[in-house]
């Protein structure tokens, strides 16, 4: 029974990572940049949803929608102002700018919303399912998160694989110049990518804080890094990979804590990551692209 309950905790934590990782991998796979500010967009999304329900008394659904809208706009604006001017620069330059944006968002949140943590009200309430005479509890939010994660993954897979915009995104990710020569509006495509990534960040923020309800200006940064790790574990740019990576990461974290040592849990998670990459150097589902000589 402990095993099962650990597994469920792992799944729940993992699917939060997975949802963040999906947004991460989207931007990462297409704009070819490590958007270290992604975690902070999550934080903004969570704050918006928080204020919607506690201050403005809006129903949860409206709150989530509002968060999605605000984050989408935020993502696009950030892209336009901070990343677009760097299209021609090295990817490291963009990475550092993203870190600047991350600092900016955190400190702006600190000034606007104070450092005092807020307790998030779960958008689906705190209900839980009890199985085996109550020896096993599964919270509704865990189920919602896993389901949301699956839906988002399926939708993204369909979107990038089957739609015209999805194809344009793949083309941009490989060669922006050549994509332009195909008649693709590269700037618009990348904006759309950021819009989607940020909308997902808003949803991730709401779900993250519904499951783990403390909200502070730094709430997004650690899950952001974990999700980045998850995205790489699953294989950069691979949508199912991000999902599997996220869930595995959550499960490993919980099992590592539960069966080995809580003191070593971070080391365990990262060791598994390293071992996995040594065996599969491009992540679990990453494509092994051999350079033709």
């Amino acid at each position: 029974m402990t095993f099962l309950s650990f597994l469920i905790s792992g799944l729940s934590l993992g699917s939060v990572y997975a949802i963040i990782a999906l947004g991460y991998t989207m931007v990462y796979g297409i704009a070819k940049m490590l958007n270290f500010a992604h975690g902070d967009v999550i934080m903004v999304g969570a704050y918006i949803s928080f204020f919607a329900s506690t201050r403005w008394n809006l129903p949860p659904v409206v709150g989530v929608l509002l968060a999605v809208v605000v984050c989408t706009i935020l993502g696009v604006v950030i892209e336009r102002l901070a990343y677009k001017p760097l299209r021609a620069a090295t990817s490291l330059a963009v990475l550092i700018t993203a870190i600047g944006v991350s600092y900016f968002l955190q400190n702006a949140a600190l000034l606007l919303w104070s450092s005092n943590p807020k307790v998030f009200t779960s958008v689906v309430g705190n209900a839980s399912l009890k199985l085996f005479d109550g020896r096993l509890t599964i919270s509704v939010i865990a189920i919602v998160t896993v389901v949301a994660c699956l839906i988002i993954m399926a939708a993204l897979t369909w979107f990038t694989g089957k739609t015209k915009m999805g194809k344009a995104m793949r083309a941009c990710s490989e060669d922006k110049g050549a994509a332009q020569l195909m008649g693709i509006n590269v700037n618009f495509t990348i904006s759309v990518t950021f819009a989607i990534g940020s909308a997902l960040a808003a949803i991730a923020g709401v779900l993250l804080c519904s499951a783990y309800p403390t909200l502070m200006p730094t709430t997004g940064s650690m899950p952001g890094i974990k999700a980045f790790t998850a995205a790489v574990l699953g294989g950069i740019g691979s949508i199912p990979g991000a999902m599997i990576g996220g869930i595995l990461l959550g499960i490993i974290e919980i099992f590592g804590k539960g069966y080995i040592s809580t003191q070593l849990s971070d080391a365990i998670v990262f060791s598994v990551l390293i071992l996995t990459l040594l065996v599969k150097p491009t992540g679990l589902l990453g494509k092994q692209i051999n350079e033709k000589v």
Partner: protein
Amino acid sequence: MIMKKTTRNNLYTYALVIVSFIIVQLLISGGNITSSLKGQLVPICAYVILAISLNLTVGILGELSLGHAGFMSIGAFAGVVAAISLEQIIPITLLRLIVALIIGAFFAGVAGFLIGIPVLRLKGDYLAIVTLAFGEIIKNIINILYVGKDKEGLHFSFLTDSNALNLGEGGRVIIDGPLGITGIPKLATFTMGVVLILITLFIVLNLIDSRSGRAIMALRDNRIAAESVGIHITKYKLMAFVTSAALAGAAGTLFAMNYSTIIASKFGFNTSILILVFVVLGGLGNIRGSIIAATLLTILPEMLRQFNSYRMLLYAIVLILIMLATNSDEFKNHLRGLKERLLPRKGKRGAEDGQS
């Protein structure tokens, strides 16, 4: 023979460091330096060395590392443990500091070697994430490491607490898990820091401009071609990585010896990123740039203190603007346009002021 362009360039770099040192010394002896700046001299030296050493990995070898602070951390802890345990054996502080620096560099170098062997087979972002992972693992391990000394020598223990060290009479706990090390003798000096920068420069610049350095840069530019001319990939990757780690270790010792306390959490992802910011801002492969960027960006947050709570927000904005200004043609054009538009307007505004 006419001096090579690189040689001349390198001389400028040494001169920059030496002249800055002399100026600062003059300021100090004239009493014209604020405590704030004076307090930052040693950390600036440490960050300069860290930036130079990371530039060796990122700029010269061309591999993104997100765990450089891990090596700094190993150097800091190993060096301080050495300095504390050698207190009686080597009473001369300068000598003890030097020994500590060497030990810090050695342990970090060994860690670089052990990590480098598996890691350097990976490519690009995968390698980056693994360096990040190692940085976090190092942090985690030091957090559960207990080291103490007594008459019988050093004692080690993992996971439990300092009691498990079973120290004898008069024993002293040196590393106390997450509590880190407290009561560190403040041996680091600005002069020593500058000397260490010069040594670092000597090693790195000479390495780059030699047969081995060429091979390292060849790997960066084109791995397949490098193999085709008979360059042993792993050997040179390791050479760069280990050198970089060892120098970071020495910098870590220097850094730690400037504060009375260090804890492992200090050397996490954020510090690694900070060092990376120095490197990218100074320019990949540009050693002098690293020195300047590390110095300016270490001082910048202190300069912004007058803005109180807006300080870190401004820091973020300045960082973004610098990145845009140095890397974006589009942004440069905007700036130029803005200047052209502002200049005449400035004149107009002056006129308005005159009227009112």
